[in-house]
């Protein structure tokens, strides 16, 4: 524990004058060496024990009878108990310090574990990824901008950029529109009808991208002409007099990309609906009544009264779906793996990193993705600031 080094020798810091009576404040202002010691030893022991236990799961599963349920349960107890215990001893350690020091330190003690996770899993890797993007395929030597030159001269990369832009234009907007429509219509139903219909619409939220791809794979399935079509889309198409199509292989007008976007929209409308529905219910009835008295039609009321009042939520939903779309991977990977002009950035990254073992180019692609999210990031931070100011 690095915080141990900040613990001063207790006696030197004690307040020489007796503390004035300040009401029932917790704890004395002097250091309590025993608490500091117990806290320190407790923290070290817990970290040591949990780390070893978890390494044990990894390297010696036979110690745990090779039993996954047992390992999982033990990990849960050790992880949660360890975290609780760690905070307990950390708190004891900090409280044992002289009060002035302890009050300054305790917020950092509470922050330490989660900030450490964020630093290790997100901030450090981001910097390292930028670093790797200037290095060769196995990150052993710097190559300058060679990776960037290489991806920018790769037509498939531009293809995926164009596809990503299409996804960004289509999916968030369509999701929001569907979300608003469903929320408005559901609001006009009986309470039971509303609840029931909403459940059906947001059921797909629980389904994985992989599961959704399995589901929609059945819809887009192809059978040879003449034989009965088992894919729903082809069945309808053939009934209408068309020839059966291998839908996901048709890059004309990016049809295959649009068909995959349908999957993501289908998954996300439920989420949009939840937020938008509560925003619509929050629109004050008297604003609507007033418009009605002024003779506005229902359509006018909707666009001129309701929409302006739920604009904030619409933007929130839009941004959330946008972030998701920027890194869309699973659906494309599973359905086409980027063939037939359907590639997207996240899938290119995956293939560069694992199929081609090109860490340099893969990380360069991530850096491009990172640059692409910066506007969203700035918006997000500004939005947060504005909201805090209103709090």
């Amino acid at each position, binding site marked *: 524990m690095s915080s141990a080094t900040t613990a001063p020798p207790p006696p030197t810091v004690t307040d020489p004058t007796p503390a004035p009576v300040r009401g029932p*404040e917790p704890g004395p202002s002097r250091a309590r060496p025993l608490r500091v010691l117990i806290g320190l030893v407790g923290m070290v022991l817990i970290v040591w024990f949990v780390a070893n236990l*978890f390494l044990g*799961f990894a390297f010696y599963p036979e110690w745990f009878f090779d039993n*996954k349920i047992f*390992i*999982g349960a033990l990990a849960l107890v050790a*992880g*949660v108990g360890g975290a*609780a215990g760690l*905070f307990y001893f950390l*708190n004891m350690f900090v409280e044992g310090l002289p009060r002035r020091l302890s009050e300054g330190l305790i*917020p950092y003690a*509470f*922050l330490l574990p*989660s*900030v450490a996770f964020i630093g290790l*899993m*997100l901030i*450090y*890797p*981001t910097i390292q990824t930028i670093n*790797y993007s200037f290095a060769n395929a196995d990150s052993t030597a710097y190559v300058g901008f060679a990776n960037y030159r290489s991806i920018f001269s790769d037509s498939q990369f531009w293809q995926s950029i164009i596809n990503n832009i299409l996804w960004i234009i289509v999916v968030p907007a369509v999701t929001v529109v569907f979300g608003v*429509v*469903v929320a408005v219509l559901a609001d*006009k139903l009986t*309470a039971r009808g509303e609840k029931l219909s909403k459940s*059906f*619409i947001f059921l*797909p*939220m*629980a389904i*994985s991208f*992989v*599961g959704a791809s*399995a*589901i929609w794979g*059945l*819809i887009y399935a192809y*059978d040879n002409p003449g034989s009965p079509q*088992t*894919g*729903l889309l082809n*069945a309808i198409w053939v009934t209408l007099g068309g020839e059966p199509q291998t839908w996901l292989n048709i890059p004309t007008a990016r049809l295959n990309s649009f068909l995959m976007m349908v999957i993501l929209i*289908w998954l996300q409308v439920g989420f949009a609906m*939840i*937020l938008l529905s*509560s925003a619509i219910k929050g629109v004050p009835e008297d604003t609507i009544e007033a418009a009605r008295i002024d003779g506005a039609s229902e359509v006018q009321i909707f666009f001129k009264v309701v929409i302006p009042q739920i604009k904030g939520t619409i933007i*929130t939903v839009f941004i959330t779906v946008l972030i998701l779309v920027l890194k869309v*991977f699973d659906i494309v*990977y*599973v359905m086409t793996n980027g063939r037939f002009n359907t590639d997207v950035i996240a899938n290119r990254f995956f293939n560069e*990193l694992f199929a081609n073992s090109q860490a340099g180019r893969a*990380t360069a692609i*991530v850096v491009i993705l990172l640059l692409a999210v910066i506007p969203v*990031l700035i918006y*997000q*931070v500004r*939005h*947060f600031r504005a909201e805090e100011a209103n*709090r």
Partner: protein
Amino acid sequence: MSRTLMKDGRPRSVFSVITMVVLVVLWTIPTLGLLATSFRTRDDAASSGWWTAVLNPFGAGWTTENYSKVFEGSDIGVGLLNSVVIAIPATILPIMFAAFAAYAFTFMEFRGKDVIFIVIVGLLVVPIQVAFQPMLDILGPEGLGISGQYISVWLLHTGFGMPLALYTLRNYMATLPVSIVESAKVDGCSHYQTFWKLVAPMAVPAMAAFATLQFLWVWNDLLIAKLFLNSDNSTVIVQVQQLLGTQGQGKELLTAAAFISMVVPMIVFFSLQRFFVRGLTSGAVKG
């Protein structure tokens, strides 16, 4: 629009009812197709559309064989177990850590508070792909050597889920009255005690909302599970993804396996739905 009134006095909107019914049917048909296909033999599924069986339920040869084959002939059972063993700690750990930090962000004053939180808000947007190559180095054979094991995935999901967990819990805690915490302090409670006795119990709705989201995300994740787990430990989602490539023999298993992979998240989602909706709409998750 018709003039008849509903029980609560609002006019009944026939247009809304019809449109919603159409939307609900459209939204349900894809899943229904998978469910129906999973109960058909491979020959049936290859020779006629699933809707022919649904429209003629007594003439169709329904079978549960796909499900029994999935459990006997493949490792789906193990995969389900792996998914559970991975998802539960990966859901609870970020909440544990984030709750303490959110308490500090809400009820304590310290230097750097705003800057740190702004960084966290920014990280909500950063794609997790940035972490893969460096984390493969740290966790892989040249680093700690725990890549492939549960623990590496627990750690990754805890780290990646942390910004959202912090953001959700902190925003929720900010709606709690500060006076409660202050009066606890006057009564001589330490921060640790105040957290456990007062703030944590009050923050349960936000925790449940985040837990639902995180559980679904971990359970349904393909990318991290594919990269950081070895084949013994792979999740049911990875197994379904591998089955998706199957043609001919074994193809019928896909639908059953896919449906099995959806059952647990659906149960979790619908049992925690109330918290989830409340958490989302109370401004707990803002983007």
